[in-house]
């Protein structure tokens, strides 16, 4: 079996396709001959040029799902297309809040399994094959489906690099949502957006993260200050997220964000495998830790054995003196 048609679940924020959507489109183009997006939202026409420029020839849309959540209606609309004979060989979904809802519900509707936490995709002997980082990224497992398609893959962020192809706008095709019974009863009453200055954690060129070694919540201000001076984004280990010092959105690692910046600075972070799996794709890593034996030094390009309470203030002062 070769791979012909691939669907990418296209997510967007305020009329702009998300970075992971563009990553998946790039993956799809390298694997199959026809790439189509499947999306929702009030204005798919405005997404069509960007989706097209990244290789999607068509954009199926279920239209505006608000105030409902997308999981049930988008999955049901996809399943209806498949059951009506318009079936792709593969469906690519990003590991996002809504993505996992859609993938899970689609899987149950079609009675097809899902391969998740995918970090790379290849076609081997004509069979789509997914790569998974296991045991904290120390090993790579390859997996594939043995039954009929569509093959549903849930792919982690930053696994592929977006690439424009220069294609024209995707053709927008509105599809029906079948009756959902009670499955679509959830209603969003209000959206709360937490304002943050600076680049987003998963898009920043520099990420400065803090961990339990900072000692106490107030000291996280040093991490934020260093991030600001380097035009980067602040991040965190799960230890200080669970302790309530910073919101979950700051967490880097297996259960948080995957980041691949040019530079990652780890301050008072031990380097647990679950943390490292989210940041060891950084081009350069600086680690500051008072324990010479800390595992983080095993992957750092520059390791500083020292006290964050001394090194960070001096570094911040020196950077301020330059600007």
């Amino acid at each position, binding site marked *: 079996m070769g791979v012909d048609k691939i669907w990418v679940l296209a997510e967007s924020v305020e009329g702009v396709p998300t970075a992971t959507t563009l990553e998946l489109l790039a993956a799809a183009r390298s694997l199959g001959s026809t790439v189509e997006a499947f999306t929702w939202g009030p204005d798919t026409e405005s997404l069509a040029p960007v989706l097209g420029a990244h290789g999607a020839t068509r954009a199926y849309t279920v239209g505006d799902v608000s105030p409902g959540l997308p999981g049930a209606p988008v999955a049901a609309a996809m399943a209806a297309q498949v059951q009506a004979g318009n079936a792709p060989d593969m469906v690519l979904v990003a590991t996002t809040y809504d993505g996992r809802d859609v993938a*899970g519900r689609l899987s149950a509707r079609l009675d097809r399994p*899902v391969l998740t936490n995918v970090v790379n995709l290849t076609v081997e002997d004509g069979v789509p094959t997914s790569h998974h980082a296991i045991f904290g990224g120390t090993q790579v497992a390859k*997996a594939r489906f043995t039954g009929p398609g569509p093959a549903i893959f849930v792919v982690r962020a930053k696994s592929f690099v977006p690439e424009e192809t220069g294609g024209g706008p995707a053709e927008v095709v509105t599809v029906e949502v079948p009756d959902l019974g009670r*499955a679509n009863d959830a209603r969003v009453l209000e*959206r709360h957006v937490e304002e943050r200055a600076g680049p987003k954690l998963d898009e920043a060129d520099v990420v400065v993260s803090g961990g339990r070694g900072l000692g106490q919540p107030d000291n996280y201000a040093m991490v934020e200050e260093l991030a600001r001076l380097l035009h980067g984004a602040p991040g965190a280990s799960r230890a200080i997220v669970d302790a309530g010092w910073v919101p*979950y959105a700051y967490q880097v690692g297996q259960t948080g964000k995957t980041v691949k910046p040019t530079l990652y600075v780890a301050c008072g972070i031990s380097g647990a495998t679950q943390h490292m799996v989210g940041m060891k794709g950084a081009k350069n890593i600086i680690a500051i830790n008072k324990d010479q034996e800390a595992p983080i030094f095993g992957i750092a*390009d520059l390791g500083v054995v020292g006290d964050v309470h001394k090194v960070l203030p001096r570094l911040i002062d020196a950077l301020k003196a330059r600007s």
Partner: protein
Amino acid sequence: MNVAVCVKQIPDPAAPGELDPSTLTLKRDGKLILDDSDSYGVEMALQLADQAGGGEVTLVSMAPRGETGGLRTALAMGAAKAILVSDDALAGSDALGTAKVLAAAIKRISPDLVVAATESTDGYTGTTPAQVAELLGMPSVTFANKIEVADGAVRVHRQTEAGYDEVECPLPALVTVTAGVVEPRYPSFKGIMAAKSKPIEELKVADLGLDPTQVGAAGARQEMVSVEEAEERQAGEVVVDEGDAHERIIAFLEQLKVI
């Protein structure tokens, strides 16, 4: 209000994981414990039932060899009873197979609310709960970091990329919780003693009316092809701070053209 909580019993995450060389699936032959991720769901369920002024919290688990270690921990926290599905036919189940089993077990108790964790610690596919909801034809709200129940509906703060959404959903519904939702209690001595005599109903695949070819390794319809060592990152220079390490860092930043 009756609440069903999905609780996964897993190998101790502190012990290094190991793959079975013949099937390339995770070995689960040691003692199993309550997945930490599910302790939040158990606590939340107990508090919600309490606030509703009554009702039972029932645990639902699928695990090999009739394992009850993790269930006893959750019963000691205060859950009333448990359903355990344990059957050799379930070995090698994938997330969808697991969801079919959990959904069938949950159906038997028709709860007002189903609670699961956002993702498990060992498999962390994070798809099982949405699959369960779809199989039950139920609405779901995932990634909750706050839950209240009032007037036959659940109100959830659902984590988003930018902050959170306030979502309301009529019951029955399924909700998945994050670690931020509530602080789990430690089982008291009294709770541990009481848990020993709480009922655990043990079921087989046939009791749930499921076709054995739909679950277990046969139902998974996926296989591991190979496992290879990942490319290792090499350690670079290490300096010990003598009051001047910041200068070395600045030089490195200049070299990277970050500054």
